[in-house]
């Protein structure tokens, strides 16, 4: 047993870090390290920088223009990026639809859709959830009816993350209303400029516009935009769910936020002592740091099992549950650390370059909106309750 990375892995990490020092735009880094909201151009600038280096597809095989990295290399890359303050890679194109197109799309679809994802010139969003189908995806109601060379799509999608920027949406649609729920679903790629599509913002409790409702009314989609076979969409969606978990624990992000928590706790005081030396507060910081240490090893255990071609398996649910809980806890402790300054909530003061008269230290301006925003972590991607169902059924056999 050996918990150290190989010297090759360590050299690779240095290579990534050195790239980050030179090519991560400093204003983007500043926003991420200080918890300021990111915009479309921030994500794109980072994707363009990666693409220029040949690293546009860190999770892609080389044959499609990706890096061909192993799971361990991807992990090292993700962790180094997150720690240095790089934005997360928007997953809907890169990690989700691309994975399905590579596995089940035809050559024409692969040539048409994959290069713009890699280059960051086409933005994708996900059309899975519906008002009546959250964790229970098989109950999608959006209908696609064949009409000559087209499908005519009607329905409503929701929780569409960053759909306001999207050029394309990949949708689960019902193509056979009479089949069993899982059987009659198809996987369609839809141009967001199609007539009949309306995007409406959903404002979340932190004041962000991150998610949307997407309405589809008699939207005509060419049949060549069907992935794989009609009525097999559920299979493709399930395949994807098993593959979007390499970075599910968010170890790098949590390490970055832990460092930020410690900086705040070193600046704030109680009874004249820095919070980081206060017995109660420092014990809470210690607890979350230790949990993170354990989760990092658990994550590496899962990776190393994958490397030996053992199935990734339901252990990913453990990573999702603990990872999301730890990230939420870190933000909760930051709001605790800034005390009453957790209450002022002027969104303008939470933007980069704000010059107004706001009587709060810079570090105290952002924890609250992030605390509110990150409540989503235990809900999306299969809520933590769904993950516990998976563990009890798939691992414990109950």
């Amino acid at each position, binding site marked *: 047993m050996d918990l150290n990375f190989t010297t090759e892995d360590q050299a690779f990490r240095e290579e990534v870090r050195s790239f980050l020092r030179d090519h991560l735009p400093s204003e983007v880094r500043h926003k991420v390290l200080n918890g300021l909201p990111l915009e479309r151009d921030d994500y794109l600038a980072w994707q363009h920088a990666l693409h220029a280096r040949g690293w546009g597809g860190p999770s892609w095989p080389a044959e499609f223009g990706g890096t061909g990295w192993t799971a361990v290399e991807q992990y090292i890359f993700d962790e180094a990026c997150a720690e240095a303050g790089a934005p997360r890679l928007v997953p809907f194109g890169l990690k989700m639809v691309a994975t399905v197109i590579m596995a089940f799309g035809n050559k024409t679809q692969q040539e048409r859709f994959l290069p713009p994802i890699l280059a960051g010139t086409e933005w994708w969003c996900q059309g899975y959830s519906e008002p009546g189908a959250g964790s229970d995806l098989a109950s999608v109601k959006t209908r696609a009816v064949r009409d000559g060379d087209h499908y005519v799509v009607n329905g409503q999608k929701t929780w569409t993350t960053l759909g306001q920027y999207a050029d394309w949406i990949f949708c689960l649609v019902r193509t056979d209303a009479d089949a069993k729920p899982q059987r009659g679903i198809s996987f369609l790629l839809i141009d967001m400029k199609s007539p009949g599509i309306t995007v409406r913002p959903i404002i979340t409790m932190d004041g962000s516009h991150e998610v949307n409702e997407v309405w589809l009314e008699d939207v005509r989609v060419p049949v060549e935009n069907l992935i794989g076979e009609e009525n097999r969409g559920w299979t493709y969606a399930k395949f994807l769910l098993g593959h979007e978990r390499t970075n599910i624990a968010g170890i790098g992000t949590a390490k970055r936020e832990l460092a930020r928590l410690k900086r705040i706790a070193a600046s704030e005081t109680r009874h004249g002592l820095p919070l980081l030396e206060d017995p109660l507060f420092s014990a809470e910081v210690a607890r979350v740091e*230790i949990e993170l240490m354990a989760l990092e090893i658990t994550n590496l255990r899962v990776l190393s099992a994958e490397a030996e071609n053992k199935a990734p398996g339901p252990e990913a649910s*453990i990573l999702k549950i603990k990872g999301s809980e730890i990230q939420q806890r870190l933000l909760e402790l930051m709001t605790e650390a800034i005390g009453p300054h957790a209450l002022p909530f002027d969104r303008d003061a939470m933007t980069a370059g704000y010059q107004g008269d706001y009587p709060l230290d810079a570090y105290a301006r952002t924890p609250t909106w992030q605390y509110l925003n990150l409540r989503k972590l235990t809900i999306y991607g299969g809520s933590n309750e769904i993950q516990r169902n998976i563990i009890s059924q798939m691992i*414990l056999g*109950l």
Partner: protein
Amino acid sequence: MDFSFTEEQNMLVDTAERFVSKEYGFETRNRIIASETGMSETVWQGLADLGLLALLVPEEDGGLNAGPVETMLVMSALGKGLLVEPYLASAVMSTRAIATLASPDQRGEWLERMLGGELIVAFAHDELGTRHEPLAIETRATRIGAGYLLDGRKSVIRHASQAGMLLVSALVEDGVALFALDRDTPGVRLAGYPSVDGARAADVFLEQVYLPESRRLGQGDASDALLAVLDTGLAALCGEALGVLQRSLDTTIEYARTRKQFGVPIGKFQALQHRMADMLIHVEQARSMTYLAAVRALDGDAARRATALSAAKVVVGEACRFVGQQAVQIHGGMGVTDELDISHCFKRLFAIEKTFGSTLDHLDHYRRTLAA
């Protein structure tokens, strides 16, 4: 990065697990606990015959010279059987102390008898006020002629009454020293009692106990060696915890699959499923930190080693409490009876959480390193 075990390590696990399942059933264990000595000579000899008592003994002394990973694996297998024999005290901690500190003559005198099963050695270090301040020792060894006079009180020393010899830590002029003390040395008094988990323990009172120089292990201040032995013990204890945790989880899942209420197995109730999912998460996090403890147990940087081990004990300790409590809860009324083995798992987990510093003691140690 490699989480796999070697073929030899897997065989070791096999050997230990087969021994436990064959020789250490629940009924057998109950008889052992109720017996006068509180341990089984047969079991101890069995462990010796399998070579398990020689695990940490250096090769030149006839042992296997195995490391912390092997120790963790064996401890975990023994943990599954809730073994009450003095493996941790004698075959792990005392053996390591003697192997690192003792002179060739002393090693020759003790190690061969220890690995053969003839000599059991208790590790008499803890005192009333030490909690998790390992060097807060008050027992004194005052030089007198060619030897020492020992005075002090060692508290809750596991297996003291079963041991032929005790390793006692004491303050000397130039720091801390370890002494090897025969149990029947004049001036040694034991106040023995059963421990909550079925093992035997005692407070050891030392009053003007004379020991010749030949009974001191090593020269000069032995603080570093003592800390290393305690950390070896802590890492091994985490390994044992893992075995008890796994048994508790497995037993609970089996119970939930078979026990029916309202016409269905209680494992079909989501409230209980989620509880067991959380138990599994605790066990897996504890497993990760137990691996870390094993890998760091020999780190020469004592401060770094102590921090890693404290982190491990926090995660393992939390797991002991959560898994133990929920295992009993899910067993319902049967869970609180002496008749089912789950209550015995509960008590061992309770004891482990309080051994070598509790969760809170280690959390306190860890949090003090944050501002540094």
